């Protein structure tokens, strides 16, 4: 059931053998490691995530069938372990990205290049985050300040310049 990687999705792999034999799970693991290590949000792996999602769904259905059809419980539990591991990577990848979006929500809303790295759902999430935060700040604090002091961005402790440089390591 190990699906092979699509040709376009593994940039930098010159070895043809490596290219055709890398499983999606290994690609997901690589994307997960990169996302964990990078201080800024990286490009969303749309096709990889779509494939993995499909495989996870397929596997979940299979396990249900197995459990019903009397295949021995050892095999079922091993398949379940493999599924759990894959799901962990998948969820962790998405959660790390969401954490970064929450952290940099204002930067993202001002920066179309960064926005282009998000998936459609993530873009929606980022927009809702920023809107909610703005409304919250408005209602609880800013509306009570004098007129010139009501701008969210100006009051924000998020610096206008990108301070990404110094978290490079």
């Amino acid at each position, binding site marked *: 059931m190990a699906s092979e990687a699509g040709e376009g999705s593994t940039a930098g792999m010159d070895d043809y053998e490596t290219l055709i034999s890398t499983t999606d799970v290994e690609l997901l693991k690589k994307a997960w490691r990169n996302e*964990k290590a990078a201080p800024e949000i990286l490009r969303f792996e749309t096709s990889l995530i779509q494939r993995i999602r499909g495989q*996870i769904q397929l596997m979940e259905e299979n396990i249900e069938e197995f459990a019903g059809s009397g295949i021995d419980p050892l*095999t079922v539990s091993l398949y379940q372990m*493999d599924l759990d591991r894959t799901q962990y990577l998948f969820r962790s990848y998405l959660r790390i990205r969401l954490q970064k979006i929450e952290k940099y929500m204002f930067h993202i809303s001002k920066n179309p290049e960064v926005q282009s790295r998000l998936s459609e759902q993530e873009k929606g999430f980022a927009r809702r985050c920023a809107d909610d935060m703005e409304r919250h700040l408005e209602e609880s604090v800013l509306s009570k300040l004098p007129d010139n002091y009501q701008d969210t961005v100006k009051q924000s402790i998020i610096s206008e310049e990108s301070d990404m440089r110094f978290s490079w390591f």
Partner: protein
Amino acid sequence: MAGQSDPQLSLFSAEEVEFIAEDEMVEIVPNLRMDALNFVCGDFGPFFPQLATQVPLWLAVALKKRGKCTIRPPQWMTVEKLTQVLEAERDSQRVFEQLPFHYVEISRLLFDHARDDIPDVYMVRSLIEDIRDVRFHKVETNLESLNERAFALKINNLSAMEVNIVRPFVGRALQAFYKHDSPDLIPDQDRVSDRRPQVANNATRRHLRR
């Protein structure tokens, strides 16, 4: 929750490093007959009694726990090999010996779950602990030689656990060197408070010129 480890401590939690290590291949000898397993992460089997086969470490441990196989310790996990490595580590101040990237995690998992499959297990365990100590001490000593000209750090043959522990420190250290070395590059917010109001400055200057 998946993937919520604290980035201040280290990039990957110890459990996450172990998770990555569990995909390493290891040899087992099953004692049962089982059809091929078509996992999302790969295809393994079919399994025949007494016929050795390669599987990922997590699968090997799962089967071992249920008494369905024995695990063959990897080539490097023998008293002879490890004694060689330990002596070589002790002999050199700066060079690290070639060890599998995940040697700490692999040996830990095997000690915990497959102790009876390892010959001279106590000796092996004590050798690996000594190797870990010597290597880590070497890392610490070498890090002391970091000076302001360092932009990046390259250490050969470091293992996964060692890298994971050292990484946050090295990152912050290099950052601190960078920052203290080139103060003009950073619009230092503290500087603003140093500036006195213009009027007072002019007044002072005029006074001194008399």
